[in-house]
């Protein structure tokens, strides 16, 4: 495939989504970008979605379904904000603390997995319950509120979100495409038994995967907390819901990854999702319609992926 064609295929989905959503808004007599607030809404959505998508994809691509990512975001933000508020720190230390706690909680989750050797789905459910319960206990169930702290709330700006997005992309590309760990990760993906026989340590690799996912969710928890100025508690797997925002971008990213780097693909998938989110905002689509549309998009894309050759051959015949 030529470079130009690969570039076109890479950009096709986000461009198509951008054009269609703009047309829908125009048809309703609404401009998609009327003020800087709408750019902020778009960029914030990209930042949130890309962090969850990266975090989820790291383990999911290796066949490890990790339900604990949401609870890591919750607990790391609770711990970091509690310390931040106690010592009167600013947003940058809070972000650093969130990343640190996210990393540690991710590593702990990975340690439990490689120690107990139970299916990752079961481990992650247990870890999710444990982290949710811990967050609840730390805050006595009240959650954390800092709505009067303008410094922390002031973090939510377009440049700050862009910095986080770019940092996340660079982190993923370097970790998975430029390090021995990344090559080992890919080798394990293509054949675990062979990879282990060549001397790759799969437990160490899994542990780093959980740590990286935790780190990213620490950043997501920080963004979520500083957007609203409060952290609501979740119990009984209430934190799992955030995972579902990552599925469509993951599938889109996987598709785009055929033509370029899959990390860039996930980012473009997140951008596509953010355009759809902004359309919901601009048209004030009610939540039930929004959920139906999102589900239809996910199912539609999966149908396309599973029948791609058949659909393309039909398309070729008609031309």
């Amino acid at each position: 495939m030529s470079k130009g064609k690969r570039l076109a295929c890479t950009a096709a989905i986000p461009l198509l989504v951008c054009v269609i959503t703009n047309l829908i808004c125009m048809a309703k007599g609404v401009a998609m970008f009327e003020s800087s607030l709408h750019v902020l809404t778009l960029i914030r959505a990209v930042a949130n979605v890309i962090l969850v998508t990266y975090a989820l994809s790291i383990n999911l691509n290796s066949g490890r379904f990790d339900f604990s990512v949401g609870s890591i975001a919750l607990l790391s933000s609770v711990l970091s904000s509690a310390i931040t508020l106690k010592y009167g720190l600013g947003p940058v230390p809070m972000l650093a603390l969130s990343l640190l706690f996210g990393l540690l909680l991710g590593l702990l989750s990975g340690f439990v997995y490689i120690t107990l050797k139970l299916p990752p789905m079961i481990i992650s459910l247990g870890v999710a319950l444990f982290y949710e319960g811990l967050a609840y206990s730390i805050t006595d169930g009240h959650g954390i509120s800092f709505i009067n702290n303008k410094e922390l709330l002031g973090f939510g700006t377009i440049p700050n979100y862009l910095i986080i997005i770019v940092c996340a992309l660079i982190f993923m590309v370097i970790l998975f495409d430029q390090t021995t760990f990344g090559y080992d990760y890919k080798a394990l993906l293509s054949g675990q038994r062979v990879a282990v026989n060549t001397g790759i340590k799969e437990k160490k690799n899994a542990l780093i995967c959980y740590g990286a996912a935790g780190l990213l969710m620490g950043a997501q928890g920080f963004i979520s907390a500083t957007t609203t100025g409060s952290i609501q508690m979740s119990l009984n797997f209430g934190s799992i819901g955030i995972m579902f925002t990552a599925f469509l971008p993951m599938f889109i990213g996987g598709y785009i990854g055929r033509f370029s780097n899959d990390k860039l693909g996930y980012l473009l998938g997140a951008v596509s999702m953010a355009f759809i989110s902004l359309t919901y905002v601009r048209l004030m689509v009610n939540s039930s319609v929004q959920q139906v549309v999102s589900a239809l998009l996910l199912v539609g894309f999966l149908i396309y992926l599973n029948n791609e050759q058949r659909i393309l051959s039909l398309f070729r015949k008609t031309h």
Partner: protein
Amino acid sequence: MKSFRKILVLALSFVLTFTLAACSGGGSSEGGSSASEGGIDDSKNVKIGVLVADATGAEALAFRSYYENYIAKQYNVTFMYSDELTDAAAEASAIDNFIANNCKAIISFASSDRPAQIRKCAENKVYYAVATGTLSDEEYAEFKDNEYYVGAIGPDLATEFQAGYDMAKFYLDQGKTKFAIFGGATPYYTDMHIYRTAGMLVAMCEAGGGTYNGASDFGSMIGKIYEMNCQLEPAKIGSVEVVSYIGGYDFDDAWFGKLAEAANNPNVEVLLTVGSGLDTFAAFKQESQQLATVDSYTSDAVAAMKSGVLNYLAGKYSASIGPIFMATLSAVQGKPIRTANGEALALSQGYWVATSAEEAEKFYAVDSSTEDPAYTRAMLDTLFGASYDDFAKFVSAYSFEEIQNLKK
């Protein structure tokens, strides 16, 4: 050897005697008193199960704190709490668990299937009461004569309507005409939020001289909301305008975007919320705007009122669940409180409304106290085995000032 046996027998006798004494006195209160002046039997521990649908909300936590940190220390009662219950099956399972643990009564904050809860309790001869809520007229008609149904005390739907109406009217009277409304769980058909929203809209119809999609009074507004499948939309109501409307608790990027969009609309003067005002609009609110909500009195809410982030708070006070506890204890100890016709309680309570930081601080000081809460033991004891009229009179005096007067 013989003397050793004698000592052993003596020692075993002591152990047996103390064990039997401990068993016979099992569960007695620390004080060990048998009955207080009001006739309450404090000698036997009463286990009460509490069904909860929300374990993390500020209001739910305040209620729990009142029961656990005040009531349980004042009376010889043990509260057993359920997990967060999200459906009728979970409620039934929790009731089974309470019955297996010898609970004599159940106080319910969960409402997925109240008729099923009452039936299950009655079948097992366990007393049942509804805290901070009411039954529908049909449900009340079905269960009012059931001896195990103690009753319900809490804001009825008319009170919820009034809470929304008063909130909107407070700002309409100040000449505000442009509003954004957060409808909370209205899209999920939650009556409490539907009625509060309806109250806001009716107040706007009266002040603006218009209608909301053809509806303008209590009955027609409720009907209109259901006709719209509880999916409301912005509208002009005469000279007043609902510039923006958001419903639901999606907590996704689009939802936060919609809240920010509404708050950043330069036309919006007031942000009215049926609940969760601090978790929704507070971070996006402009300084020129006013924010009003129905919530509970917490330190965060008071701080928000002091800083001007929150401007109007209608809150349930945590001790409001004191009377239903006493009605339940009364029933368990053989002195049920019923109407003259022997029917169960069905009483309404309202909110404490604070429109200034000073008021909010005053309410919070009383509401959060575990030493001297709004309803103290001395006040609640007067309700033990009381007549229906006396009980109803006590409950109906729910304003902050009235309760302070009752204390004197």
